[in-house]
């Protein structure tokens, strides 16, 4: 009896380190035995059609396409509403990284939330792939070794739309600007591009976020006699500016330039109102067979075509999972190294590259909104005017003020 007990104790004593060893080997590959991806977005406010539930669907599609498992561990997608509040976004990100063991957070639209979450990611040494925010601060003064800025930024929008319009002869500009960080930065970036290409800026009017009526701002734009009225705002503000511009006949003698217009905005305005507008996006569902296939799959689940943010979240999630696979671990440093060294090729980007400052550079598209008569089927909204090559679309690396860029 005693002998047997001794024997079993010895056996278990010998086996125990083996189990522990096995467990820690597993842990070395995938921490906590599960790879968790968090979609932090605006689920209910003014940007919820651009990201929102659609982003959670897109992330889940990427997980399904990847096979649901990475390195033998299951992949889980969770999502939450940051209500466009930077403090709420930051505390949710911290809770996710610390308590929920989330490995990567994505979407993160709204520049205020995006920058706050980037800071948390750096403290926690966890990855944040920002798809939805526009501010170039994410790859300049607020860059971190753990953030990627994936889909677009104010520089790319200004550069794409601004340059193209000035070249077509739209050389005098007046800006209608949302009075907060994003609007100011979009206005400044565009004004710089306009001036650099020989145009001039005649003035600007700054309207409060979520302004109730735009007619008086548009009258000011009208009396400026500028050829182009640049809309440095987003979402509902852009939609209502465009509506009022049509109503007051501004579009007869002047043209509108939507500096941040998503396909969901065009859908909601209708082609009658939006037609002719030039805009820059990083994705359009009707570019080629691959994007069409993705668009239709997304449509079946979300009942609308994907925005640039939805496609970006899909691609970001897929790239992240590929990097985990290639690195053989979900350790943030190893995965970031893989992300930055592997070209991205999927439905969203061809030969996309993540630079040292975290900027993912890829082709951008200059698009024009179709006339109602040109639109042949639902969501047939854009004509592709030009593809802006990756190395021209974004701020050059040598101009980045990111501390990670060696000079």
């Amino acid at each position, binding site marked *: 009896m005693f002998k047997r007990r001794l024997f079993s104790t010895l056996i278990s004593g010998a086996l125990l380190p083996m189990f522990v060893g096995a467990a820690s080997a597993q842990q070395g590959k995938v921490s906590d035995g599960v790879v968790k991806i968090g979609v932090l977005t605006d689920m209910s406010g003014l940007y919820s059609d651009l990201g929102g539930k659609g982003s959670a669907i897109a992330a889940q599609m990427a997980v399904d396409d990847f096979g649901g498992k990475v390195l033998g561990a299951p992949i889980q997608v969770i999502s939450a509403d940051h209500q466009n509040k930077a403090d709420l976004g930051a505390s949710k990100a911290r809770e996710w990284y610390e308590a929920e063991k989330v490995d990567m957070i994505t979407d993160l639209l709204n520049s205020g939330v995006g920058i706050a979450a980037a800071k948390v990611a750096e403290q926690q040494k966890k990855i944040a792939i920002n798809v939805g925010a526009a501010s170039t601060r994410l790859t300049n003064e607020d860059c971190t070794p753990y953030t990627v800025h994936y889909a677009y930024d104010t520089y790319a929008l200004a550069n794409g739309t601004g340059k193209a319009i000035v070249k077509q002869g739209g050389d005098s500009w007046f800006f209608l600007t949302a009075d907060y960080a994003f609007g100011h930065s979009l206005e400044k970036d565009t004004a710089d591009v306009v001036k650099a290409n020989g145009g001039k800026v005649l003035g600007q009017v700054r309207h409060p976020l979520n302004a109730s009526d735009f007619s008086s701002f548009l*009258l000011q734009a009208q009396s400026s006699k500028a050829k182009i009225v640049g809309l440095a705002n987003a979402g509902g503000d852009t939609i209502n500016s465009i509506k009022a511009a049509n109503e007051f006949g501004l579009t007869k003698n002047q043209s509108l330039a939507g500096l941040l217009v998503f396909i*969901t905005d065009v859908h909601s305005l209708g082609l*009658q109102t939006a037609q002719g507008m030039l805009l820059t996006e990083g994705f359009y569902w009707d570019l080629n067979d691959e994007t069409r296939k993705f668009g239709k799959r997304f449509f079946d689940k979300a009942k609308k075509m994907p925005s640039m943010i939805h496609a970006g979240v899909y691609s970001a999630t897929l790239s992240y999972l590929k990097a985990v696979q290639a690195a053989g671990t979900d350790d943030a440093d190893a995965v970031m190294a893989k992300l930055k060294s592997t070209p991205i090729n999927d439905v969203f980007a061809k030969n996309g590259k993540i630079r040292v400052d975290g900027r993912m550079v890829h082709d951008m598209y200059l698009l024009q909104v179709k006339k109602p008569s040109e639109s042949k089927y639902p969501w047939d909204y854009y004509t592709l005017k030009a593809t802006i090559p990756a190395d021209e679309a974004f701020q050059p690396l040598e101009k980045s003020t990111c501390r990670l860029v060696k000079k």
Partner: protein
Amino acid sequence: MTEIFGISPQALLSQLLIGLVNGSFYAMLSLGLAVIFGLLNIINFAHGALYMMGAFGAWMGFTYLGLSYWLCLLLVPLAVGAFGIVIERTMLQWLYKLDHLYGLLLTFGLALIIEGLYRQAYGVSGQPYSTPELLRGATDIGFMMLPNYRAWVVVASVAVCALTWYVIERTKLGAYLRAATENPKLVQAFGVNVPFMVTLTYGFGVALAGFAGVLASPIIQINPLMGSNLIIIVFAVVVIGGMGSIMGAIVTGLALGVVEGLTRVFYPELSSTVVFIIMAIVLLVRPAGLFGREK
């Protein structure tokens, strides 16, 4: 050309006119609030949501049933009013005896629920609604091109406001209503059905919100949050005008629209705040509001 503070008189006049258009909306919405507060003592926070329902009603009527704008202008306020009557009968009527706070909380909760349901169904980007055929285009009135529809908004809202004022202040029905607010028991004793009148009043106030919603639908994007963006300003208008004062709500609504319009020219960054600055000053100087009576 002579200029006033660096702005040409033409530009100034057109801004004044635009201010008046916005003021018409403030006037109509604050009028509904004032009627409801004056006669029911309910601070109706659901007013913005009901205004949104009015705009959506016009859109739904057109999209699902093919109803014209003019028909919607008539039917939608009735439908929204009927919805208001249901709210009043099933929920609000139990709160009259309690503190204002309960009515405020209930209607605020209702607003959140209504907005949430619409958001769930239609998203937040909103729905477009085109201007009725008859009122498309703009008229040159010398100093600006005034879109015909905006001119119609001013005419319609001033007419509705004037009519409301007349009914409440100058007719026998209005006299009953006002008497019922002062002393419901006594009026009831004279054989007037006070609860019925109160219900109709709430329905009417709410129908005004629905009417404003239909009027607004061709101008701004119809989305579930359009009411909550506006309702805070409208409350400020009611406070400045004097809680419950009918004339106060109408005049202050129009005047603040104009003040806001001017702010948009001279210092646009302040335009969303100016109403609240005026509210603070008015509360300091005349706590009962410009047209209110101290109780």
